[in-house]
């Protein structure tokens, strides 16, 4: 055992076995201590290696990513969400709301902030109904009028706009595509402005899933989206679904008007759910 490196490697192996034994015995505290010891031993090994052939440690790589935005408006999250939903004009899931926000508006908004939003709004509504000019509330399932998973809407929208029938997810997607394309177009034509990279990416992701919305492939790698083409394509498909979707939504909204106001906003309570039946 002349090589100190060998000796160190031997004790590293011994430590690893001790960790295994401690874990097997369920002694996680001891295992944790041993892991710390192991890290020290490994550092010693590194040091020994370095003394052998001094090689400068590579500088820690700077992480290539956009720097966290330090600027931005101090608007509360609900204002950000409101603005994004107004732009879309359709019920939307938190991920899309954040996407729209990042594409078109300054300030920070994270999906995690949205998770409790609907509950907070409902609570605020209950404590003093109608005190706020708008509430962020639920989309309603067309059949049971219960809240739909994950989707957010605005209380000032007509009920029909907040109802989700079988065709509505697609209708809302196409409507959203049109609104996003219009917003991108507005940015393109505004004086001195141009759409953000995030806005173009968002539009691209919508357009890629609408027939005929993408420009035909050109030899050059980057194909440029034509906002009018996206709008036309989305409208063309929308025309196929719109009447059927509208019929379902308006029928459901008629029924929904029988609910009390809070239920109209935040959905009917779970129903039609019988207690667990004993299984055969």
């Amino acid at each position: 055992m002349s090589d100190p490196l060998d000796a160190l490697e031997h004790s590293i192996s011994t430590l690893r076995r001790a960790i295994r034994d401690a874990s097997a015995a369920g002694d996680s505290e001891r295992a944790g201590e041993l892991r710390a010891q192991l890290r020290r031993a490994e550092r010693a090994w590194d040091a020994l290696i370095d003394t052998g052939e001094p090689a400068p440690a590579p500088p820690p790589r700077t992480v290539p990513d956009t720097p966290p935005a330090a600027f931005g408006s101090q608007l509360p999250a609900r204002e950000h969400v409101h603005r994004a939903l107004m732009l879309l004009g359709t019920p939307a899931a938190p991920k899309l709301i954040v996407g729209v926000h990042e594409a078109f508006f300054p300030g920070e908004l994270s999906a995690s902030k949205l998770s409790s939003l609907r509950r907070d709004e409902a609570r605020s509504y209950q404590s003093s109904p109608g005190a706020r000019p708008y509430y962020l509330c639920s989309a309603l399932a067309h059949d049971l009028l219960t809240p739909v998973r994950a989707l957010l809407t605005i209380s000032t929208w007509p009920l029909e706009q907040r109802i989700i029938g079988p065709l509505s997810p697609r209708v809302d997607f196409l409507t959203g595509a049109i609104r996003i394309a219009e917003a991108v177009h507005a940015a393109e034509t505004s004086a001195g402005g141009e759409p953000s990279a995030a806005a173009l990416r968002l539009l691209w992701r919508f357009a890629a899933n609408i027939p005929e919305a993408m420009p035909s492939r050109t030899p050059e790698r980057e194909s440029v989206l034509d906002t009018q083409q996206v709008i036309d394509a989305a409208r063309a498909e929308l025309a196929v679904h719109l009447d059927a979707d509208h019929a379902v939504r308006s029928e459901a909204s008629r029924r929904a008007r029988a609910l009390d106001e809070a239920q109209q906003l935040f959905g009917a309570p779970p129903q039609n759910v019988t207690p667990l039946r004993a299984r055969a």
Partner: protein
Amino acid sequence: MSMLSALAHVEAMQNMTAVRLTAFRHHRLSDRPLVIIPLTMAGEAGAPLAVMAGTARRDMTLLVVPQPRNRDQRFAFAADLGRVVMDYIDSYRQDRRGEGERSQYTDVPQIIVPNQGGVNALADLGRMCRFRSTTGPYAVPEVVPEFGMWLTFLVDTAEMAGTSMLLPLTALLTEHWATGQSTLEDQNLASLMAWIAPPRGVSIAQALEEAENPDVCPPAGPSTSPEFDNRDLAPAIKRFDTAHALGDPHTLAAAQTELTELIAGQVKPTWRLMWAAISILRSIPKAPQTARRLDRDCRLFTNHSDYRDAGGLPQRKRDTAISAARRLSQLERALADFEAAMAFDDPFVLADRRSGGEAFTGTVVESQPNRTAITAKNTTVPRPRVTVRTSDPLRLAAGTKLISPTMPKGHKAVIVSVLPDGDTTLVTVEVTAGMGRGRTPKAGSVPDLDKDIDYLPDPGWRPNPTFPDSDHTPWTHSADPDGPDDSAVPENAAAEEWGHDN
């Protein structure tokens, strides 16, 4: 598997120790191999997590992707690793010998990974990098596509038997040793090494148990152990993300150091094990024809290098069915040549073939050294015949062309007849080459009476392959015409979906 190898595994199992399968090492080991241990993130192909690379046990670089889901970090990592690997490869693109067509480099790089999974990880990385553009909105550093094309080249050569430019260590070890465990378990480098060279003071049985315990022997990759992922790695990545979001350089540096240390702890045991294995492999004498195979490697390496120097396009995504079949036939050919060369060089391998009836050893019991024949061109040539008595279970038929490691170079023969004689077999062969230009065979070119002689099939003789119909291939095998890399679909288009936790 032959009867002899099967028996070797049974012996290994019974005696609880690895058993030798060859007399020689049939793959070249470079004096300065580049050892690479790739780690990937579970659940996502092509999401590299880290790599340890270096050309000596004491000289290694650890590269870590702190957030493997971030595509920008992925390509920054690919560029870093690409520089390490390209520096290494370029050091072999210096010395050339020969003129014109025959000019080639005199040595080739050698990358060693722990197991086949390591080769697959490099294949994925190569595919991910080689089509990347160095201009435009998602530009990557110049080295990235170059690195991708070289990796793809190396991975392609690794499929060809006998090449040595990219090797999984487990394959090198199992070529020389039989263990008392299954092929599946032999894929675990630590288990395999437990049979061959257990750690000092540890029995093979104990070492085997430890090899499967991720606390003692973290997996050699490319996947890390789920326990490690959940217990250590996930929280550390989360801390890194948080630090990154906060933007505080000190917290970020600390988080990065922690992550690097954690991963180092997982990869270093494999690093040490690999160099231990390499040093054991070095002690095995290399087979005589290894040099000839190096020459082929130099040829392949030079061709690709020149192609790269000429600015060649990246390798196609997929071969067409026909060219795939053609490549398959090349690979089969290389395998046959390699197997024959191993048997020619190595009595262990020859014995292996003998036990399967594909080669034989026996004693010359009858000889007609002066027999001649008249060729179609009406010239008389020596065609001596000898009869060999063998107790091997021969399965070769009349007409099989043969070579012999016990005869001088150039000796060739063909089986004339095979006749069972009690427990033994009498094989009559006609010598067809290696006798010089004269009308009588030169001295020593015909086996003498009572001489012990080995014969095995000449791989030079193979039927022409017939290629499968290119139609009706299932989708897993079908090949579309090779277009550009989906030019309308930038891979980063959905990048933000994956940036950070949400």
